[in-house]
């Protein structure tokens, strides 16, 4: 009876997992599948999950896109129904991805440089206004980004950074640092104070204590912070839309969105761009997979 129950339980769990996975992965699968379909196939009914005539055309267009002036007169040269239509801004996609990557990496690096020492100080040094400063940082995250757009815009304009990647780095830091500090503070606080004392007695300055003792122990939460920061910058749309105006500083989400506002829309092409957009975060996740898993057992770290 119990064995039967246990088997039933297992079957139920397996079924539930399959449903959950299907729910999560179906859009991604459709993205991947449709990125190698032609526009005609993508709009067919019922949809083809497995492309009948797979084509590299969409990807080729991204990598080989030429400058093309689209006017009202020539807009039908590439009829979306034939699958030959490529948006006029297609050639901006690769530079935009490069911009996104530069911004994301810069934000990750600068964010760590600021948030790691800040979190250590807040977790391990008793100073007046310590808990107030932690709460204050968190409160800044309660304000919705849309409320900050105008002040940010004026600020960026004053700095002369409009249409410059620096504007994105600065504002993304303002968004990501408080949350990173919060994650790290709670992790550092979970590490025993005596470890800090022991390191200082052993001859470490505060900075050495942080770098030689706390940072190695905090790798799981550092990875969490890196992923969070990278993904936030990589995906951010609203601020990028406000501060960037030309391909010189436009990021990937802006350019992909612009494909949908052209004279005509090629969904298969947009999906191909989407597949490319997914690649860097996935690569990052795979690279850090080991640490993400070890983050789950981080509670085992004890003095």
């Amino acid at each position, binding site marked *: 009876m119990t064995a039967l129950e246990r088997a039933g339980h297992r079957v139920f769990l397996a079924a539930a997992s399959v449903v959950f996975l299907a729910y999560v992965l179906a859009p991604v699968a459709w993205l991947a599948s449709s990125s190698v379909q032609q526009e005609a196939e993508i709009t067919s009914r019922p949809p083809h999950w497995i492309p009948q005539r797979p084509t590299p055309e969409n990807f080729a267009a991204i990598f080989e896109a030429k400058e093309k002036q689209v006017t009202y007169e020539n807009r039908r040269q590439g009829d979306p129904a034939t699958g030959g239509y490529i948006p006029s801004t297609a050639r901006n996609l690769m530079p935009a991805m490069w911009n996104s990557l530069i911004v994301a990496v810069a934000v990750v690096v600068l964010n760590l440089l600021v948030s790691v020492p800040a979190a250590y100080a807040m977790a391990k040094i*008793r*100073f*007046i206004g310590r808990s107030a400063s932690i709460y204050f940082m968190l409160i800044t995250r309660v304000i919705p980004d849309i409320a900050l757009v105008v002040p940010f815009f004026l600020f960026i304009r004053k700095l002369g950074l409009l249409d410059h990647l620096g504007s994105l780095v600065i504002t993304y830091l303002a968004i990501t640092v408080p949350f990173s500090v919060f994650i790290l503070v709670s992790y550092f606080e979970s590490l*025993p104070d*005596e*470890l800090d*004392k*022991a*390191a*200082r*007695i*052993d*001859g*470490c*300055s505060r900075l*050495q204590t942080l770098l030689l*003792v706390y940072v*190695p*122990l905090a790798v799981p939460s550092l990875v969490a912070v890196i992923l969070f920061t990278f993904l936030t910058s990589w995906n951010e749309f609203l601020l990028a839309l406000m501060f960037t105006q030309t391909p010189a500083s436009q990021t990937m989400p802006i350019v992909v969105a612009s494909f949908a506002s052209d004279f005509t829309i090629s969904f298969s092409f947009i999906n191909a761009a989407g597949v490319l957009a997914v690649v860097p975060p996935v690569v990052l996740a795979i690279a850090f997979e080991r640490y993400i898993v070890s983050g789950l057992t981080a509670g*085992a*770290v*004890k*003095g």
Partner: protein
Amino acid sequence: MARIRLQSVGKRYPNGFSALENLSLEIEDKAFVVLLGPSGCGKSTTLNLIAGLEDVTSGALYFDEQIMNVVPAHRRDVAMVFQSYALYPHKSVYENIAFGLRMRGHPAADIDRRVKDAARRLELEALLDRRPHQLSGGQRQRVALGRALVRQPAVFLMDEPLSNLDATLRIAMRAEIKQLHQTMQTTFVYVTHDQAEALTLADQIVVMRDGVIQQIGSPEEIYDRPRNTFVASFLGNPPINYLEGMLTEEGEALCFQRGSLSLVLPHALALRLKGQAGRSVKLGLRAEEVDEHSVPRPGETLHGRVSSVLPVGSDQYLGFEAEGKLLFFRVGRDLRHREGENVALSVNVNRLQIFDSGTGDSLLWSGNGA
């Protein structure tokens, strides 16, 4: 080597809590000093101040003649062992022990020699490649000791290092620490709330309460000549018994009087209590200072009823009702008292303590110590 001197040291935290007030203490070079007190008495704070882990708010801290108030921890020649051991979880035993030397820039060959030497001394040689989480509590404790002793510091600080160990291991480690002090020839400052540890290890005990030193002295002094009831109560197992009463003069002799109980104080004590007759006092009677063997003599006898018998292996504890109070004594295990029996106990009057019934200060020994 260092003599440590705290001069009117105060420690106040940003939240206004005052952990230490006007604390003055001198620790001789190569001494083994134990700071003893209940939790929250400021003993760990004192240790942290000496280590440089916390800043002195007022007063001065000297190592020999050098003022140390603002010298950061990593520039003081101190080593410390913590209650939780505080080993670096990500480093091997070898690296844990070597870390302090590495940070101070010792040459690699010297580090290797010293670490192996310490490992041999603490029987850790087979464990050098292990991580702390693969070690037992006792092994971790020894690594923590190794990490401290490998540096050959001028001052060796220990913050309740044995309280996470089980009872047998604790006794063994006590002996090891005592031996370590003898071989290292350096100043030890040891914090504990365990009176047995303090009595076995210390050259000098500093009893603290609420950030104030109550008494400084050798273990014998602290035990035999407590300056107040707090010190008297803190040492002794079971704790010292108190009886409120009156000092009276009977002819030549000075007596302690309470109801039908009358104890004649010996000459040596009476001398110290000259002119105090008629004063209401608190009598302190240590648990072991009674004897059921000797024939009770007048003026040295306590009559009462056995209310409970608690064997504790080597001894037994006797719950004893006398003069309307419940007292506890430690007696030999061969004596078979039954509950409810009326017994006369002979009191060792030479070891009586007399305290002021109001302040709790000793009327016998208020002058000694600090």
